[in-house]
Protein backbone atom coordinates (compact mmCIF):
# COMPACT_ATOMS: atom_id res chain seq x y z
CA UNK A 1 0.00 0.00 0.00
CA UNK A 2 1.31 3.47 -0.88
CA UNK A 3 0.08 7.05 -1.30
CA UNK A 4 -1.37 7.93 -4.71
CA UNK A 5 1.11 10.83 -4.87
CA UNK A 6 3.95 8.32 -5.34
CA UNK A 7 2.41 6.40 -8.21
CA UNK A 8 4.07 6.84 -11.62
CA UNK A 9 2.34 7.98 -14.77
CA UNK A 10 0.65 5.22 -16.68
CA UNK A 11 0.15 2.93 -13.70
CA UNK A 12 -3.17 1.43 -12.73
CA UNK A 13 -3.93 1.13 -9.04
CA UNK A 14 -6.83 0.38 -6.74
CA UNK A 15 -7.96 2.75 -3.97
CA UNK A 16 -7.81 1.14 -0.53
CA UNK A 17 -8.51 3.99 1.88
CA UNK A 18 -8.67 7.76 2.21
CA UNK A 19 -6.77 9.00 5.23
CA UNK A 20 -8.60 12.25 5.71
CA UNK A 21 -11.47 13.89 7.57
CA UNK A 22 -15.11 13.33 6.71
CA UNK A 23 -15.37 16.45 4.54
CA UNK A 24 -12.58 15.45 2.16
CA UNK A 25 -13.67 11.82 2.08
CA UNK A 26 -17.15 12.96 1.11
CA UNK A 27 -15.88 15.33 -1.56
CA UNK A 28 -13.68 12.61 -3.09
CA UNK A 29 -16.54 10.11 -2.96
CA UNK A 30 -18.71 12.62 -4.84
CA UNK A 31 -16.02 12.67 -7.55
CA UNK A 32 -16.10 8.90 -7.75
CA UNK A 33 -13.10 8.15 -5.58
CA UNK A 34 -14.30 5.43 -3.21
CA UNK A 35 -12.52 2.43 -1.66
CA UNK A 36 -12.15 -0.34 -4.23
CA UNK A 37 -12.24 1.82 -7.35
CA UNK A 38 -9.63 1.27 -10.04
CA UNK A 39 -7.85 4.35 -11.33
CA UNK A 40 -5.16 4.98 -13.91
CA UNK A 41 -2.62 7.74 -13.28
CA UNK A 42 -2.45 9.81 -16.45
CA UNK A 43 0.06 12.34 -15.25
CA UNK A 44 2.01 12.64 -12.07
CA UNK A 45 4.79 15.05 -12.92
CA UNK A 46 5.66 17.65 -10.33
CA UNK A 47 4.74 20.46 -9.92
CA UNK A 48 1.54 19.65 -11.79
CA UNK A 49 -1.52 18.00 -10.26
CA UNK A 50 -2.03 14.24 -10.19
CA UNK A 51 -4.38 13.55 -13.09
CA UNK A 52 -6.42 10.36 -12.93
CA UNK A 53 -8.61 8.39 -15.27
CA UNK A 54 -11.45 7.33 -13.01
CA UNK A 55 -14.81 5.83 -14.01
CA UNK A 56 -14.46 7.16 -17.53
CA UNK A 57 -13.69 10.75 -16.51
CA UNK A 58 -10.58 12.70 -15.69
CA UNK A 59 -9.90 14.01 -12.22
CA UNK A 60 -7.08 16.34 -11.15
CA UNK A 61 -5.91 16.23 -7.54
CA UNK A 62 -3.38 18.34 -5.70
CA UNK A 63 -0.43 16.46 -4.24
CA UNK A 64 -1.60 17.13 -0.69
CA UNK A 65 -4.87 15.36 -1.39
CA UNK A 66 -3.22 12.60 -3.45
CA UNK A 67 -0.89 11.92 -0.55
CA UNK A 68 -3.87 11.03 1.67
CA UNK A 69 -5.22 8.45 -0.75
CA UNK A 70 -3.81 4.97 -0.12
CA UNK A 71 -3.64 2.62 -3.08
CA UNK A 72 -2.25 -0.78 -4.11
Amino acid sequence: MMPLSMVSSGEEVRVVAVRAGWGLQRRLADMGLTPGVQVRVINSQRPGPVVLDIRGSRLALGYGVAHKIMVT
Partner: protein
Amino acid sequence: MARKEITIALAGNPNSGKTTVFNNLTGARQHVGNWPGVTVEKKEGSLSYEGYHIKVVDLPGVYSLTAYSLDEVIARDFVVDENPDVVVDIVDASNLERNLYLAVQLLEMGAKLVVALNMMDVAESRRYQINVKELSRLLGAPVVPLVATRNQGTQELLQTVVGVVKDNIEVTGMRLQYGREVEEEIAKLEKVISNNSLSKKYSSRWLAVKLLEEDKEIIKKFEEAQVG
Protein backbone atom coordinates in the same frame (compact mmCIF):
# COMPACT_ATOMS: atom_id res chain seq x y z
CA MET B 1 -57.35 26.08 -17.12
CA ALA B 2 -53.86 25.71 -18.56
CA ARG B 3 -51.11 27.60 -16.76
CA LYS B 4 -49.08 29.64 -19.20
CA GLU B 5 -46.17 30.87 -17.06
CA ILE B 6 -43.58 28.24 -16.26
CA THR B 7 -40.18 28.24 -14.62
CA ILE B 8 -37.44 25.80 -15.52
CA ALA B 9 -34.09 25.39 -13.82
CA LEU B 10 -30.95 24.30 -15.66
CA ALA B 11 -28.73 22.01 -13.62
CA GLY B 12 -25.61 20.09 -14.54
CA ASN B 13 -21.90 19.54 -13.99
CA PRO B 14 -19.46 22.32 -14.82
CA ASN B 15 -18.44 22.07 -18.50
CA SER B 16 -21.47 20.02 -19.46
CA GLY B 17 -22.64 22.70 -21.92
CA LYS B 18 -25.14 24.30 -19.58
CA THR B 19 -24.32 27.85 -20.65
CA THR B 20 -24.61 26.88 -24.32
CA VAL B 21 -28.05 25.39 -23.73
CA PHE B 22 -29.02 28.46 -21.71
CA ASN B 23 -27.97 30.70 -24.59
CA ASN B 24 -29.77 28.52 -27.16
CA LEU B 25 -32.95 28.79 -25.14
CA THR B 26 -32.90 32.45 -24.16
CA GLY B 27 -30.86 34.20 -26.85
CA ALA B 28 -30.39 37.82 -25.89
CA ARG B 29 -33.18 37.74 -23.29
CA GLN B 30 -30.87 37.19 -20.31
CA HIS B 31 -30.26 38.95 -17.05
CA VAL B 32 -27.23 38.41 -14.82
CA GLY B 33 -27.30 39.14 -11.11
CA ASN B 34 -26.30 37.46 -7.86
CA TRP B 35 -28.02 34.89 -5.74
CA PRO B 36 -29.28 36.82 -2.69
CA GLY B 37 -26.63 37.64 -0.12
CA VAL B 38 -23.76 35.89 -1.90
CA THR B 39 -21.29 36.53 -4.69
CA VAL B 40 -22.39 33.54 -6.76
CA GLU B 41 -23.65 34.64 -10.17
CA LYS B 42 -27.32 34.04 -11.02
CA LYS B 43 -28.41 33.99 -14.65
CA GLU B 44 -32.03 34.20 -15.67
CA GLY B 45 -33.59 34.42 -19.08
CA SER B 46 -36.88 33.82 -20.81
CA LEU B 47 -38.53 32.70 -24.00
CA SER B 48 -41.96 32.04 -25.45
CA TYR B 49 -42.87 28.62 -26.78
CA GLU B 50 -46.26 27.28 -27.87
CA GLY B 51 -48.09 29.94 -25.92
CA TYR B 52 -46.04 29.38 -22.78
CA HIS B 53 -43.85 32.05 -21.26
CA ILE B 54 -40.85 30.14 -19.94
CA LYS B 55 -38.51 31.60 -17.36
CA VAL B 56 -35.12 29.87 -17.38
CA VAL B 57 -32.91 29.96 -14.28
CA ASP B 58 -29.33 28.82 -14.69
CA LEU B 59 -28.17 27.05 -11.52
CA PRO B 60 -24.47 26.94 -10.55
CA GLY B 61 -22.60 24.02 -12.14
CA VAL B 62 -22.22 21.30 -9.51
CA TYR B 63 -21.16 17.65 -9.32
CA SER B 64 -23.38 16.84 -6.39
CA LEU B 65 -26.01 18.31 -4.05
CA THR B 66 -24.44 18.07 -0.64
CA ALA B 67 -24.27 20.80 1.99
CA TYR B 68 -20.52 21.25 1.65
CA SER B 69 -20.24 24.04 -0.88
CA LEU B 70 -22.19 27.23 -1.46
CA ASP B 71 -22.87 26.41 -5.11
CA GLU B 72 -24.44 23.09 -4.16
CA VAL B 73 -26.56 24.62 -1.39
CA ILE B 74 -27.84 27.28 -3.82
CA ALA B 75 -28.70 24.70 -6.46
CA ARG B 76 -30.36 22.39 -3.97
CA ASP B 77 -32.32 25.12 -2.20
CA PHE B 78 -33.65 26.47 -5.48
CA VAL B 79 -34.99 23.07 -6.51
CA VAL B 80 -36.64 22.44 -3.15
CA ASP B 81 -37.81 25.93 -2.15
CA GLU B 82 -38.75 27.44 -5.52
CA ASN B 83 -40.11 24.16 -6.88
CA PRO B 84 -39.52 24.88 -10.59
CA ASP B 85 -41.97 23.25 -12.98
CA VAL B 86 -39.16 21.33 -14.64
CA VAL B 87 -35.49 20.78 -13.83
CA VAL B 88 -33.39 20.19 -16.93
CA ASP B 89 -30.21 18.34 -16.07
CA ILE B 90 -27.57 18.87 -18.75
CA VAL B 91 -25.59 15.67 -18.89
CA ASP B 92 -22.31 15.28 -20.77
CA ALA B 93 -22.86 12.11 -22.80
CA SER B 94 -19.10 11.49 -22.96
CA ASN B 95 -18.83 11.45 -19.16
CA LEU B 96 -21.98 9.59 -18.33
CA GLU B 97 -21.20 7.98 -14.99
CA ARG B 98 -19.95 11.17 -13.41
CA ASN B 99 -22.85 13.24 -14.78
CA LEU B 100 -25.59 10.79 -13.86
CA TYR B 101 -24.56 11.06 -10.21
CA LEU B 102 -26.24 14.47 -10.07
CA ALA B 103 -29.25 13.31 -12.11
CA VAL B 104 -29.96 10.56 -9.61
CA GLN B 105 -29.71 12.99 -6.69
CA LEU B 106 -32.17 15.34 -8.38
CA LEU B 107 -34.60 12.47 -8.94
CA GLU B 108 -34.25 11.42 -5.29
CA MET B 109 -35.23 14.94 -4.31
CA GLY B 110 -38.40 14.58 -6.32
CA ALA B 111 -37.47 17.05 -9.07
CA LYS B 112 -39.53 16.91 -12.28
CA LEU B 113 -36.46 16.00 -14.27
CA VAL B 114 -35.71 16.10 -17.98
CA VAL B 115 -32.25 14.86 -18.87
CA ALA B 116 -30.65 16.80 -21.71
CA LEU B 117 -28.04 14.41 -23.04
CA ASN B 118 -25.56 16.86 -24.50
CA MET B 119 -22.27 16.44 -26.38
CA MET B 120 -23.63 13.49 -28.34
CA ASP B 121 -21.09 14.38 -31.02
CA VAL B 122 -18.20 13.86 -28.60
CA ALA B 123 -19.68 10.58 -27.38
CA GLU B 124 -20.04 9.44 -30.98
CA SER B 125 -16.47 10.39 -31.83
CA ARG B 126 -15.39 8.14 -28.94
CA ARG B 127 -17.56 5.35 -30.34
CA TYR B 128 -19.87 5.39 -27.31
CA GLN B 129 -23.28 3.97 -28.10
CA ILE B 130 -25.93 5.09 -25.68
CA ASN B 131 -29.34 3.44 -25.52
CA VAL B 132 -31.32 6.61 -24.87
CA LYS B 133 -34.65 4.81 -24.54
CA GLU B 134 -33.30 2.35 -21.97
CA LEU B 135 -31.59 5.13 -20.03
CA SER B 136 -34.89 6.98 -19.90
CA ARG B 137 -36.71 3.86 -18.73
CA LEU B 138 -34.17 3.19 -15.96
CA LEU B 139 -34.20 6.76 -14.72
CA GLY B 140 -37.96 7.12 -14.97
CA ALA B 141 -37.44 10.45 -16.73
CA PRO B 142 -37.37 11.68 -20.35
CA VAL B 143 -33.96 11.90 -22.01
CA VAL B 144 -33.38 14.29 -24.94
CA PRO B 145 -30.16 14.00 -26.98
CA LEU B 146 -28.54 17.32 -27.90
CA VAL B 147 -25.53 18.83 -29.57
CA ALA B 148 -25.86 22.25 -27.99
CA THR B 149 -22.89 23.76 -29.83
CA ARG B 150 -24.79 23.15 -33.09
CA ASN B 151 -28.13 24.11 -31.51
CA GLN B 152 -29.41 20.61 -32.29
CA GLY B 153 -32.11 19.16 -30.09
CA THR B 154 -33.24 22.49 -28.62
CA GLN B 155 -36.74 22.21 -30.09
CA GLU B 156 -37.09 18.63 -28.91
CA LEU B 157 -35.99 19.73 -25.44
CA LEU B 158 -38.66 22.44 -25.34
CA GLN B 159 -41.27 19.99 -26.60
CA THR B 160 -40.35 17.60 -23.80
CA VAL B 161 -40.37 20.32 -21.13
CA VAL B 162 -43.84 21.45 -22.21
CA GLY B 163 -44.91 17.81 -22.36
CA VAL B 164 -43.90 17.30 -18.73
CA VAL B 165 -45.74 20.48 -17.67
CA LYS B 166 -48.88 19.36 -19.51
CA ASP B 167 -48.52 15.95 -17.81
CA ASN B 168 -48.39 14.22 -21.18
CA ILE B 169 -44.91 13.01 -20.32
CA GLU B 170 -44.42 11.27 -17.01
CA VAL B 171 -41.52 11.64 -14.63
CA THR B 172 -41.80 8.66 -12.31
CA GLY B 173 -38.21 8.81 -11.11
CA MET B 174 -36.33 5.90 -9.67
CA ARG B 175 -35.81 4.45 -6.23
CA LEU B 176 -32.19 3.65 -5.48
CA GLN B 177 -31.88 0.65 -3.18
CA TYR B 178 -29.10 1.07 -0.66
CA GLY B 179 -28.86 -2.50 0.58
CA ARG B 180 -30.66 -4.22 3.44
CA GLU B 181 -28.89 -2.66 6.44
CA VAL B 182 -29.17 0.90 5.18
CA GLU B 183 -32.77 0.39 4.00
CA GLU B 184 -33.70 -0.85 7.48
CA GLU B 185 -32.35 2.32 9.04
CA ILE B 186 -34.08 4.45 6.42
CA ALA B 187 -37.40 2.79 7.22
CA LYS B 188 -36.94 3.46 10.97
CA LEU B 189 -36.09 7.10 10.35
CA GLU B 190 -38.94 7.58 7.87
CA LYS B 191 -41.46 6.50 10.51
CA VAL B 192 -40.26 9.20 12.92
CA ILE B 193 -39.86 11.82 10.19
CA SER B 194 -43.40 11.43 8.92
CA ASN B 195 -44.57 13.01 12.19
CA ASN B 196 -42.35 16.04 11.64
CA SER B 197 -43.57 19.16 9.86
CA LEU B 198 -40.60 18.97 7.47
CA SER B 199 -42.11 15.93 5.77
CA LYS B 200 -44.78 18.20 4.30
CA LYS B 201 -42.17 19.98 2.23
CA TYR B 202 -39.55 17.30 1.60
CA SER B 203 -39.88 13.61 0.86
CA SER B 204 -39.47 11.58 4.09
CA ARG B 205 -37.21 9.13 2.37
CA TRP B 206 -34.92 11.87 1.08
CA LEU B 207 -34.75 13.43 4.56
CA ALA B 208 -33.91 10.04 6.07
CA VAL B 209 -31.08 9.51 3.58
CA LYS B 210 -29.69 12.99 4.24
CA LEU B 211 -29.76 12.40 8.01
CA LEU B 212 -27.81 9.17 7.56
CA GLU B 213 -25.28 11.18 5.54
CA GLU B 214 -25.12 13.65 8.46
CA ASP B 215 -26.00 16.45 6.06
CA LYS B 216 -25.48 19.55 8.16
CA GLU B 217 -28.06 21.71 6.34
CA ILE B 218 -30.77 19.11 6.89
CA ILE B 219 -29.74 18.60 10.52
CA LYS B 220 -30.05 22.36 10.97
CA LYS B 221 -33.55 22.31 9.45
CA PHE B 222 -34.63 19.61 11.89
CA GLU B 223 -33.24 21.61 14.81
CA GLU B 224 -35.11 24.69 13.61
CA ALA B 225 -38.30 22.69 13.22
CA GLN B 226 -38.08 21.61 16.88
CA VAL B 227 -37.72 25.18 18.12
CA GLY B 228 -40.47 26.67 15.95
